[in-house]
């Protein structure tokens, strides 16, 4: 009976975990075997909003590079703050050494993009359905972000800011 109740309680607890992040099978986690497992667990915890557990797993990742640890810490923090997440599959498109983009996925770049997605920075909705946000940094550069169905699909940094009209013009 007690075992049966445990199963029920576990099921209720799992159902209550409303994912804030794209499901695990939507993500790319490459790398070595042990770290892969830890990465997957951290992402699963973030998806389940279990941020304390995510931090515990991050502590186990002794061999993880400092920049990757910083990225995971930023992901956990962003989740805690309820920031709009990235669609993990879009990351190779968002972070690349091309004009208008952040060349590398760093914690700082992720943070700059995610904190741009606020009501105050809303520009409008493009013809294809992407919601556009922008803000001007102290450097004068413009962070731009496309959001679709609750996830960041594209983003970057314009050295020369574009007007709202230019950010929304489709054809």
């Amino acid at each position, binding site marked *: 009976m007690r075992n049966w109740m445990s199963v029920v309680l576990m099921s209720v607890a799992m159902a209550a975990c409303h994912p804030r992040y794209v499901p695990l099978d*939507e993500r*790319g986690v490459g790398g070595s075997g042990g770290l892969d497992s830890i990465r997957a667990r951290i992402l699963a915890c973030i998806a389940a909003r279990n941020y304390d557990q995510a931090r515990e797993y991050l502590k186990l990742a002794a061999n993880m590079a400092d920049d990757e640890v910083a990225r995971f810490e930023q992901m956990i923090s962003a989740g805690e703050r309820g920031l709009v997440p990235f669609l993990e*599959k*879009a990351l*190779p*498109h968002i972070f*690349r*050494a*091309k*004009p*208008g*983009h952040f060349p590398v996925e760093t914690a700082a770049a992720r943070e700059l993009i995610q904190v741009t997605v606020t009501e105050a920075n809303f520009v409008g909705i*493009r*013809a*294809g*359905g*992407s919601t556009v946000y922008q803000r001007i940094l102290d450097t004068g550069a413009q962070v731009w972000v*496309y959001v*679709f169905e609750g996830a960041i*699909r*594209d983003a*970057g940094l*314009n050295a020369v800011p*574009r007007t709202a009209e*230019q*950010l929304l*013009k*489709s*054809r």
Partner: protein
Amino acid sequence: MTTMEPEQAYRAMMTFLWGLWDRTKQPGELGIFCDMCSYIPGVGTADPAMWYDWLAVVKTLQTGLPVSDAESATLTPAALKPLDSEKGYIAMLEFIREYWERVGRPAEIGDLLGQMRYTPGAGTAEPEMWKRWLAAMEEVRANPSSTSNA
């Protein structure tokens, strides 16, 4: 044979893609892709990188050599040759395919690539696609007002 400058071919591609999107106007992967690729003459593409991705695809098609990210950022249309209708179509296919690969192969774009598949001598998997491409090129030729980008 009529040819188009790379910028005209890009505009024809966008006319083609928006035309496909207009069939349903359902928000989804094609709509997002069109949003990113939207082109404003004199300004560039909505996602600035898409323009350089296009130029890199055209250069690779014309030279057979891969183009690095660093090199693509320095490309200009003037450095490239005009494209005929077939080469323009193949460049479009490759441009879409590269994006599809980069973002984890979304099914909607994959289906579109399947319909657009091109076999020299046989045409496109979905015959309507080639007709749409020719119509898009004609539309751009009929409306050549545009300034060179980047």
